[in-house]
């Protein structure tokens, strides 16, 4: 089937006609194009399906033969430099292209409904298809220049899609922030590429690795310089994958429509950084410092993302921080050299997170009708709650995604995360402890989201019920507690994390009692007109339309079964799972003689440990985030336990929680720090250069002009066509002339 490979260059170009046609149509024949409207969605889905079938075919061949295919043709011809274009098909490419196309199709399908009432429906589809094109181009590219080109293009698509709702000023700043932050990474990427080109004289991956390893082996190259280049290359990945110092753009990127967040900012584009590091791993692995740096950045991001996700009130931002943390896991795995684990987690996380985002989109869609379209209302978890009975299908899907992400055994993320945790124990105990701790945190924040959103009662309705009419909606605690009195009013948000033991109830989500209570509450007439927004009389959030549910339900299948590709099935003696089989050539490239053993006896205790951590996290979450508008305030067995807690201990606990909350709410102060240091600095510098330009450089010019004007005027005034004046000047010059001659002769 060689010809499948031959025609595989077409992969990125298949979805391209859609954005081109829509773009030209919107510019030249806007009315006609807009009238067609939904018809445009079909070709984009159809073309992407073709690519999906193609990439499935390719990967099946990869499994059977595990060959790498490369084809190149030249782009520019010059004697000194030649750029080449090519396509490069290897297991990594086929995995990524399957991932992009499957998630892409489902998201396109989903957004047909999600965006159906939007003015920019066509624009949206054009951007999406263009994104698919460039992302597919990125994964099939065969050299670094091509990677850079598509890297920038996906960045631009992300910019356009984040700023999709351009009338919102928050979206406007978010998209600029995303682009500029990514440009900082691209700066590193470009310099790294240039540096590597200077050392090796090639852009092609395979030539590059070969020459590079030879150079390192023969010590013919300045090690510091090479390390710098590798570091700069890694910088590109850091920005795109939202790793620690450059992660600031990702939470803000949630300003874009939710399908975008599912496709670009959870499943595919942010994985491009992981993809790049995985692609260049043969290069990085030669430099141990860089590998250590990668794992260090990974572990910092894991922890930072998880702690930041703890107290977000925006559902999408919570998920964004969770994405960041999970990407940190992948980076950590790559830094440890466990290529397979990183890719496995990349796949499983992509599907689970896409599912979660689609679920959150469905929630937002149903909340929007209730609370209005501003993102700080419709995405505010404080206003949600109790959606379980209103949107049951979404709830099921979301719960599955949550469980998968937490790492509950039969679901996908369990297998991959467990593998990373196992490998980290071998790598460094400290990292392993942090990673395992974060696994607990993951479970905690994911269940926090789940409980706040789906359990309890719809909080919009309960603002009056809590007896605090005067307060803003912030009074609905995100921490599941009522507002205490000891908090100063100047920190209104700190107030959200106070505890009140009276309102705690038993662990809820398997409890039958809550449903009884629900029925009790829902009998009450909900005719409250809530305090903001126009007076609408939607009573309950509605389940989304079938199109959205359909794509969510399809996507549910992935977290359920994708784990299977990484689980070893004992078939005829060779202990190989699909993923290992697929990745064998790449892994062999990295570890010359590694035989991958999979031992169930070794696996079980580790798995038990990680699952127990997860359950602990879930338990804590359930403990803290009980729906607190409960009529059964004193019904609680746990009250006995908590009442015994010492007063001083409680104060300490409050302080810790306050601290954590502040940390999370203020985004670890990193955004503020950047705003203060970098942005202010650049603004100041811009002001300064502007002043310098106007006052000094322009000032000199103007000064010369004005001086010459005055000199001319002065001469006019002094001269005034008087003979005496001319005589004076004449004599003066004669005098000077004589003086010069005199001095000249006296010198000689």
């Amino acid at each position, binding site marked *: 089937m060689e010809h499948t490979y031959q025609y595989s260059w077409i992969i990125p170009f298949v979805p391209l006609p859609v954005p081109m046609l829509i773009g030209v149509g919107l510019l030249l024949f806007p009315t006609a194009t807009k009238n067609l409207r939904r018809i445009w969605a079909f070709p984009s889905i159809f073309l992407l399906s073709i690519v999906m079938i193609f990439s499935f075919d390719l990967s099946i061949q990869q499994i059977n033969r595990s060959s790498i295919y490369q084809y190149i043709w030249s782009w520019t011809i010059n004697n000194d430099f030649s750029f080449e274009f090519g396509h490069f098909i290897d297991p990594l490419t086929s995995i990524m292209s399957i991932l992009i196309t499957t998630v892409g199709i489902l998201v396109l399908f989903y957004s047909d409904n999600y965006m159906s009432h939007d003015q920019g429906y066509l624009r949206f589809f054009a951007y999406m298809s263009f994104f698919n094109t460039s992302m597919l181009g990125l994964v099939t590219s065969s050299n670094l220049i091509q990677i850079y080109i598509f890297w920038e293009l996906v960045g631009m698509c992300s910019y356009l899609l984040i700023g999709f709702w351009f009338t919102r*000023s928050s979206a406007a700043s978010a998209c600029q922030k995303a682009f500029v932050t990514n440009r900082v990474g691209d*700066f590193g990427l470009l310099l790294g590429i240039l540096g590597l080109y200077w050392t090796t004289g090639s852009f092609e991956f395979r030539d590059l690795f070969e020459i590079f390893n030879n150079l390192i082996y023969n010590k013919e190259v300045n090690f510091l310089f090479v390390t710098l280049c590798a570091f700069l290359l890694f910088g590109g990945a850091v920005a795109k994958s939202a790793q620690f110092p450059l992660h600031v753009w990702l939470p803000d990127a949630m300003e874009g429509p939710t399908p975008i967040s599912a496709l670009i900012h959870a499943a595919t584009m942010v994985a491009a950084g992981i993809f790049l590091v995985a692609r260049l791993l043969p290069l990085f692995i030669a430099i141990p410092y860089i590998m250590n740096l990668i794992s260090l950045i990974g572990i910092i991001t894991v922890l930072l993302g998880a702690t930041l996700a703890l107290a977000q009130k925006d559902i999408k931002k919570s998920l964004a921080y969770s994405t960041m943390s999970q990407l940190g896991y992948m980076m950590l795995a790559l830094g440890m050299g466990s290529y397979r684990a990183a890719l496995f987690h990349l796949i499983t996380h992509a599907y689970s997170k896409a599912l979660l985002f689609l679920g959150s989109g469905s929630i937002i869609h149903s909340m929007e009708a209730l609370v209005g379209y501003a993102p700080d209302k419709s995405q505010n978890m404080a206003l949600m709650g109790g959606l379980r009975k209103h949107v049951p299908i979404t709830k099921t899907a979301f719960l599955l995604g949550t469980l998968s992400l937490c790492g509950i055994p039969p679901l996908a993320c369990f297998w991959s995360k467990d593998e990373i945790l196992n490998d980290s124990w071998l790598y460094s105990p400290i990292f392993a402890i942090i990673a395992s701790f974060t696994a607990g945190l993951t479970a905690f924040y994911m269940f926090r989201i789940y409980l706040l959103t789906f359990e309890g009662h719809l909080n919009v309705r309960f603002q009056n019920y809590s007896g605090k009419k005067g307060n803003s909606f912030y009074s609905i605690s995100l921490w599941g507690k009522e507002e205490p009195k000891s908090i100063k009013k100047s920190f209104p948000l700190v107030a959200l994390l106070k505890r009140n033991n009276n309102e705690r109830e038993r662990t809820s989500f398997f409890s039958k009692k809550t449903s009884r209570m629900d029925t009790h509450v829902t009998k009450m007439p909900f005719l409250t007109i809530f305090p903001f927004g126009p007076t609408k009389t939607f009573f309950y959030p509605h389940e989304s339309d079938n199109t959205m549910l359909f794509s969510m339900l399809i996507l549910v299948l992935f977290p359920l079964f994708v784990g299977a590709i990484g689980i070893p099935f004992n078939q005829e003696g060779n202990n190989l799972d699909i993923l290992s089989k697929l990745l064998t050539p790449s892994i062999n490239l990295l570890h010359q003689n590694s035989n991958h053993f999979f031992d169930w006896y070794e696996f079980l205790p580790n798995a038990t440990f990680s699952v127990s951590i997860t359950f602990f996290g879930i338990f804590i979450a359930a403990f803290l985030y009980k729906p607190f508008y409960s009529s059964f305030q004193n019904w609680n067995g746990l009250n006995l336990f908590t009442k015994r807690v010492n007063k001083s201990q409680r104060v300490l606990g409050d302080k810790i929680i306050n601290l954590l909350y502040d940390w999370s709410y203020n985004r670890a102060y990193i955004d503020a720090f950047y705003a203060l240091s970098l942005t202010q600095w*650049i603004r100041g510098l811009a002001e300064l*250069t502007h002043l310098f330009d106007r006052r000094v450089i322009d000032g000199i010019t103007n000064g010369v002009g004005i001086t010459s004007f005055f000199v001319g005027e002065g001469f006019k005034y002094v001269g005034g066509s008087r003979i005496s004046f001319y005589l004076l000047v004449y004599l003066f010059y004669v005098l000077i002339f004589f003086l010069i001659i005199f001095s000249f002769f006296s010198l000689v």
Partner: protein
Amino acid sequence: MVRVYLAFTTNFFPWLTIIVVFPIATGFFIFFLPHRGNKVTRGYTIYICVLELLLTTYAFCYHFELDDPLIQLAEDYKWINFFGFYWRLGIDGLSLGPILLTGFITTLATLAAWPVTRNSRLFYFLMLAMYSGQIGSFASRDLLLFFIMWELELIPVYLLLSAWGGKKRLYSATKFILYTAGGSVFLLIGVLGIGLYGSNEPTLNLEILANRSYPVALEILFYIGFLIAFAVKSPIIPLHTWLPDTHGEAHYSTCMLLAGILLKMGAYGLIRINMELLPHAHSLFSPWLIIVGTMQIIYAALTSPGQRNLKKRIAYSSVSHMGFIIIGIGSITDTGLSGAILQIISHGFISAALFFLAGTSYDRIRHGYLDEMGGLAIPIPKIFTLFSILSMASLALPGMSGFVAELIVFFGIITSQKYFLIAKILITFVMAIGMILTPIYSLSMLRQMFYGYKLFNGVNSYFFDSGPRELFVLISILLPVLGIGIYPDFVLSLSVDKVEAILSNFFIENFHK
């Protein structure tokens, strides 16, 4: 028979003279056109421009061979006898691109100038005069002729600026003429100095001059003279302050010509005279050129966000992008020089389109200041789309011409044999910082203009979106930008042999040393 025909077409038919003289000659007829308002004049001018562009393209297609680095379509007529002044024209791979660019941009600028109604006959005549001057200076093979053509196109710019500009037009026009005339003095000194050196009869033929060598001190002196003249035009910091003022005040069709072509004459002059005629001094000065170019990228990119005026912000962005050309020229490599030439063409397109967009949006909102704008995306979506695309092109998004040009300049720097590793690392690093600063100013410009939401009150609330004329102008600029970005060999192949020929001088020199 065939030979006769060939001889007739290649040698005897004065293509270039016709191309140079045609616009200004036909321009005089504008004054004899019947007084029937604006329409006749502008139709006539467009007609002339298109005809000229077609003529140029035809001549270049059929009578120019790309793989020949020598001068082609050469013409040589004695003009002034006693002074040895010749009407000497000829083109090679280096001037081919700028001439075609001139034809293209000028035609579009005439189309862009349709709303000009005040004294339109003079306006269009000046446009055509500028057309001739620009093509003349790109095509001349005689130093003095080059100087005369150089001066010829200053006068139309001055008049266009002082008569059809904005509020501060007189200040800007005076500043422009003083700056450029000041630069021209140095150019004249250089021309006469080179021409009169070593013989009693002035030698002004560029071919002969290219093979001459001078004492080092004299060569450096000449070099400085020419450098100042071209630095004013390019512009190179610190001689750039005329540019923001001029661009801020001029009508946008004039801006298109200024940014699209006039600035490129400086860069062209640097290559044509400083590199070709004075290679020795150039290799001495090239490190300084690179340093200045790097500083210019950063400096202008930093100054740009401080500007409140939209056009001034774009003007600073074009100052910043000209830095890449200077670096490419200074790198003394095939790659770098090709990149510089590509950047000349690419920036010509992009900046012309940006100024046109700025002008058309100004026509609609009547605010020149960025902080008074906002929320324009809804009333004028097409302008928004094209503005976004072209800002992306300006910040060197891959797939657009700017990216290829800048990338090639980067490669020129790192493959250059002349510099040490540390110096190269530093320079590339600083250049790449410019890459971070560019999106800061261009995207914040977009954000301030289009994003957000604003209610437009009463009178202003009724906007037209881009009409077919404006769309046509923009799309015809956009297509080459995309075309070069996707397949840069279109432009690179024009100049590749000439670039090698120029650089072989440097290698011979290194060899002799």
